[in-house]
């Protein structure tokens, strides 16, 4: 489908233009989610898109599905309720690095542990953008933020490793620079039965790039291009060559019992009693 048709089919045109800053990568992620949904031919009437608070939290408002903009950090907990109550729905969670790794961190690891069939897309711009530039659990060491004026001394999470360890059965990382790959990764995540997790490296030129002297949006996209290493290439590189870089592509895939199916199994077994 051409962009114009995609927009017409899946977006609430009257809600555009969006509120994100000029140069923000969030629109590219939302566009990729729409293309992935279209690629997987999801029934729009059976698809719920759920978010928390922050710049990412506004994404569902622009798309023509059942959409739910919840409280800060809780998107996955609301999504668990929606999915368990009505397992036939496709449930997609759009969240940010602060929303899902800080205030929502507990819900993230437990959603992964349950392997509930929800697709989670993290808009990781390394910063709290909506509140104008505080450090998040993904802000790299010694980067600047309004709440880290002398450099961030926190160590950051590797969210993909975290959710893999917690039990997610599909884990991938992409960037907004590598858009085609990103669409594919999200589409795979949607197709996968179980908890799917896609971390998307995006850029916040307004509150992260400017303060950390990373240039404008184009410079930040180039930074993504230069620092992303595809998973196959990374496998051949010695650790020192990977220092300061990040790996993109499908990072983990496994099979495991899916939560709502497990619950249905209990219901069915009781029926037979």
């Amino acid at each position: 489908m051409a962009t114009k048709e995609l927009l017409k089919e899946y977006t609430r045109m009257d809600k555009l233009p969006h509120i994100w800053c000029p140069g923000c990568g969030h629109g590219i992620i939302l566009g990729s989610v729409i293309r992935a949904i279209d690629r997987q031919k999801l029934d729009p009437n059976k698809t719920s898109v759920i978010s928390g608070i922050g710049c990412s939290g506004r994404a569902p408002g622009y798309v023509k599905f059942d959409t739910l903009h919840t409280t800060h950090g809780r998107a996955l907990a609301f999504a668990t309720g929606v999915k368990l109550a009505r397992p036939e729905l496709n449930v997609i969670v759009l969240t940010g690095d602060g929303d899902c790794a800080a205030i929502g961190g507990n819900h993230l690891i437990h959603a992964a542990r349950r392997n509930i069939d929800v697709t989670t897309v993290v808009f990781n711009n390394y910063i709290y953008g909506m509140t104008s530039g505080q450090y998040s659990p993904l802000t790299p060491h010694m980067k600047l933020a309004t709440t880290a004026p002398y450099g961030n001394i926190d160590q950051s999470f590797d969210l993909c490793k975290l959710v893999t360890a917690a039990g997610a059965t599909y884990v991938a990382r992409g960037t907004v620079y590598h858009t085609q790959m990103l669409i594919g990764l999200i589409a795979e995540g949607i197709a996968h039965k179980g908890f799917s997790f896609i971390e998307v490296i995006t850029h916040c030129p307004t509150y992260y790039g400017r303060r950390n002297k990373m240039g404008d949006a184009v410079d930040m996209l180039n930074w993504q291009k230069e620092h992303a290493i595809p998973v196959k290439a990374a496998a051949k590189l010695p650790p020192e060559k990977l220092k300061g870089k990040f790996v993109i592509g499908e990072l983990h895939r496994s099979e495991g019992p899916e939560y709502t199916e497990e619950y249905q199994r209990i219901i069915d077994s009781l029926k037979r009693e």
Partner: protein
Amino acid sequence: MGKNEMEAVLMSGNEACVEGALLAGINFFAGYPITPSTEIAEGLARRLPRVGGKFIQMEDEIASMAAVAGAALAGAKAMTATSGPGFSLKQENIGFAAATEIPCVVVNVQRFGPSTGLPTSPSQADIMQARWGTHGDHPAIALMPASVQESLSLTITAFNLAEEFRTPVILLMDEIIGHMREGIVIPQKGEYVIKNRTKPTVPPEDYLPYAAGPNEVPPMANFGDGYRFHVTGLIHDETGFPRGRGSDGDYLVRRLINKVMSRLEEILMVEEIGMEDAELAVVACGPVARSAKKAIAMARELGIKAGLVRPITIWPFPEDAIKVAAKKVDAIIVPELNLGQMALEVERNACGDAPVYRLNRVDAELITPDEILAKIQEVK
């Protein structure tokens, strides 16, 4: 011995809450273990899958409330149960459900606080939290059972009010009612009313999810029914979308409050005993009202015309019942298991027409009939 008494079964208030929820048609429960409410979660963990419903133990209290709201949006009749510390944690998402008009039931089996307090001891110290626990102006409906039978019947009522008014309804139980066992009669089909949320009758393209219907309550579509609408905790207009306008806030907040306050006759439940000729009123709720009932009988044996006003609906507060009582009696006594929460409402509504005397215990014991009688004799 009546027929009903023959059919009575022994169960605890928490168990009766489970039975009531099942009769009301619950099909989703999310919770987190906390004393003294845990038997409700345990009961529903056993029973829900047997009727095709879903139970989930979430990672925390916050998540439980979120999952309940999510499930209710997907069409479920959803409930959670907790106690003091957990009730505190749920407050933000209770506010979300109030603002987004998601019907659900929150059971708070009150325990002694503040903080971890005395986990296995009773209290009535969450009365004000049930009204004002979440931030911002918001509607509140809360019911307080005084018996195991009422734990069952008010759980059904709580679901009905939630569905009818599209708002979270709080069942404010306590450790005494939750844990004590009494004989109760489980009503048969047809002996109780079940209400369900009003569905939109317009096609999806014409659906305005937050356009108030005749009762200020908007018809509610479920996620997955093809209406493809938006729900946000931001101040929204009738389309459900935020526009950042104060005037939308003014309209929404007033409507949320008004949808409850304009139909009080459907919500308020008050039990009155001996108020026809009472010269002194005891205003008590929950298990304290049981002591008060006995104390009133004892007082009447001594020739003191005492009466009982028992708010079953604690929020909205039955203001008129107090106003009428205050005009009639010479004194009002408010015994409660806190340092004076309901008393604030009674004092406000007595408007000086009758002096209000407090009787409070915060030593984890139920106020006794003798104590109330002594107070009656003291103020008479």
